């Protein structure tokens, strides 16, 4: 973060002495400076935000106007309204992007609730001292924000002519701020516990993304799942690069996004998204060629497919407890059943292997912990795995299983398109349930490993690790469910093709 702090400072130093025409502070971004920084924001995040609020390239007309306006800093209220009107427009535009991104996380639903409950009762809640420290930090930042307000006044005036401006760059900068703002509202509006848990998720979406600011936001108005994941991975890569240089004593942290990419999860997801999107547009174009009864009938048939996707049964987390599945054979049986007749054996094998190795890891980890309970010698404690190592194994397992699950969905999509033999949507949703259950079961096993391994650790070491595992598990489940949804257009087009084949005969 040292880089961005430096640039932030530089930006702050530059702005007061900004001369007309030489530098133009984006007016669209100014509302950002007046809203308080949320209490849960880590101190290293705030400077980054300020860094973003920096001047942006503007069309030449606006630059020409700038000197005029700055000569009369007492602007009329209407000017402000105009400027804010423009801002508000982009605001709603940006919100749709962030809301589609949040949707991915929101689907976690009960998974997240569970995490929160757990967190409230025992885990990962910041102590009162931490919270008060944060409040202090917040107040400090509010003071800074007030200072920013001063220059904001001139900025707004400068931006008078820019309300109607729809330059690509200007739009991007507003978008950036909106993403931040929306993120803030979501976080500030919640409970402290929710803030703490949700922070990481929001960070991933709202903060972690250099890409939101680039043309990606322009090209692709809907944040796709792979995009969200890729952004998370990029952020992790960035963090790793930074810590490698400055903080060598810190142990290698397990990064879900990077591991997910290593297992080619991102690539499979991207490919699945391509197939899904193409099928979707094919379905649409078929529908435009039809009319009358034919159209009505096809619509009805497609509606049936859609229904089976929206009827996706949320799996009950509590049920999972009843399953033991020490070595992953139960999972294998269920998976084989779900995949019957779907001819994607090679990929299913990879999933089974990943699951079995996870189970054997857990068995291995549970052993030394038991011995430790009997005789607590120093040596034993050293031999046993550290909590960080258990945590890393858990994250790695979740990333691998999720990547393999998405690979499975991708291969299913290819086989469906290839053979035109369409499985029942019900079978696919059953498959999704099996995968999500396994993720949930493994995360529970890993956290109980963490609890035993870390029985001597302090809460502030152990709790964030446990919370982290639950969070990534619920993320994993929602990624899998989203990938399942991507199969819908593929089933639809496959249905249409089979239909036309049979009518030709």
């Amino acid at each position: 973060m040292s880089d961005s702090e430096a640039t932030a400072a530089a930006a702050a130093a530059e702005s007061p002495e900004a001369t007309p025409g030489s530098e133009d502070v984006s007016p669209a971004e100014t509302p950002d400076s007046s809203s308080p920084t949320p209490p849960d924001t880590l101190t290293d995040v705030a400077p980054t935000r300020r860094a973003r609020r920096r001047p942006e390239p503007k069309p030449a007309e606006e630059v020409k106007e700038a000197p005029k306006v700055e000569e009369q800093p007492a602007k009329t209220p209407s000017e402000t309204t105009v400027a804010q009107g423009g801002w508000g427009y982009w605001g709603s535009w940006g919100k749709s992007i962030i809301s589609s991104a949040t949707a991915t996380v929101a689907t976690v639903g009960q998974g997240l609730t569970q995490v929160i409950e757990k967190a409230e009762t025992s885990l990962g809640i910041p102590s009162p001292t931490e919270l008060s420290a944060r409040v202090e930090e917040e107040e400090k930042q509010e003071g800074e924000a007030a200072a920013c307000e001063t220059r904001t006044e001139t900025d707004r005036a400068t931006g008078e002519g820019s309300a109607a401006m729809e330059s690509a760059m200007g739009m991007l900068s507003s978008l950036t701020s909106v993403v931040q703002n929306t993120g803030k509202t979501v976080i500030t509006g919640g409970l402290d516990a929710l803030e703490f848990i949700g922070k990481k998720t929001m960070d991933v979406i709202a903060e972690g993304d250099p890409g939101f600011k680039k043309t990606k936001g322009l090209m692709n108005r809907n944040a796709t799942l792979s995009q969200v994941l890729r952004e998370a991975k990029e952020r992790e890569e960035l963090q790793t690069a930074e810590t490698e240089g400055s903080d060598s004593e810190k142990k290698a942290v397990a990064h879900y996004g990077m591991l997910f990419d290593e297992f080619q999860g991102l690539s499979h997801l991207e490919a699945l998204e391509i197939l899904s999107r193409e099928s979707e547009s094919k379905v649409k174009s078929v529908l435009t060629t039809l009319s009358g009864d034919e159209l009505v009938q096809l619509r009805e048939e497609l509606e049936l497919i859609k229904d089976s996707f929206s009827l996706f049964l949320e799996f009950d987390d509590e049920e999972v407890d009843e399953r033991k599945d020490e070595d992953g054979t139960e999972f294998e049986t269920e998976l084989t059943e779900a995949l019957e007749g779907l001819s994607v054996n090679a990929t299913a094998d990879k999933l089974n292997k990943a699951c079995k190795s996870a189970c054997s890891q857990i068995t291995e980890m549970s052993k030394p912990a038991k011995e430790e309970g009997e005789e607590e010698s120093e040596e034993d404690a050293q031999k046993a795995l550290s909590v960080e190592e258990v945590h890393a194994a858990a994250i790695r397992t979740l990333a691998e299983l999720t990547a393999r699950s998405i690979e499975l969905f991708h291969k299913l999509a290819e086989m469906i398109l290839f053979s035109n033999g369409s499985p029942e949507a019900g079978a696919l949703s059953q498959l999704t349930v099996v995968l999500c259950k396994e993720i949930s079961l493994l995360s529970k096993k890993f956290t109980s490993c963490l609890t035993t391994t870390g029985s001597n650790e302090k809460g502030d070491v152990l709790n964030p690790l446990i919370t982290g595992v639950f969070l990534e598990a619920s993320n994993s489940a929602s990624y899998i469910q989203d990938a399942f949804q991507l199969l819908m257009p593929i089933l639809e087009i496959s249905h249409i093709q089979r239909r036309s084949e049979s009518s030709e005969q």
Partner: protein
Amino acid sequence: MAYAYLFKYIIIGDTGVGKSCLLLQFTDKRFQPVHDLTIGVEFGARMITIDGKQIKLQIWDTAGQESFRSITRSYYRGAAGALLVYDITRRDTFNHLTTWLEDARQHSNSNMVIMLIGNKSDLESRREVKKEEGEAFAREHGLIFMETSAKTASNVEEAFINTAKEIYEKIQEGVFDINNEANGIKIGPNHPTTASTLTAGIQTPLTRSGIDKNEVTTLLDLDEDHGVVIFKFAAI
């Protein structure tokens, strides 16, 4: 881990010419004589260095079977480079090149760099396609050409890396808009951006916003973390 650019590649060509073997040799430095038939697409990734910059190659290895063609075509879009592979011991794989090339040109972006590869150069005794023929085809269609052997690893590195070099040069020349991901190029998360590459890449947004590039006089600041570029504009 961090890379300056990510290039997306596709490998295309008839079934059995050794596409998956080339990829395996490049990513894992090993040869597997018997390979499962590729279904749809499989993936590989490797980091290379060009001009002192780390570049990540994300390689999409497509199925060669004719019946998969309609699916694999979907994957062409958004590739910065393509390896078009034939088998020097099977003339029919060479004869099909025109179809493959037409397909690739039709379903990908026009700037895509295409490398023609005559694979299995270790099987000299069974050769059916002369090296000169490959060269001539490449010259005629504006491709780069190489003969490789996935078995002995001969020229495999070069084939992948030379393609990347060509893409890299196109970026420097401003042919590729690096901000448009449809070109199969992504800027890395921690990119030590230079002013020159950025000015090249910024052309499109500037044009879109109605700014003449010549009005941008000075590059004031770069926010590499967030891809924000600050320009100083000449007063008019």
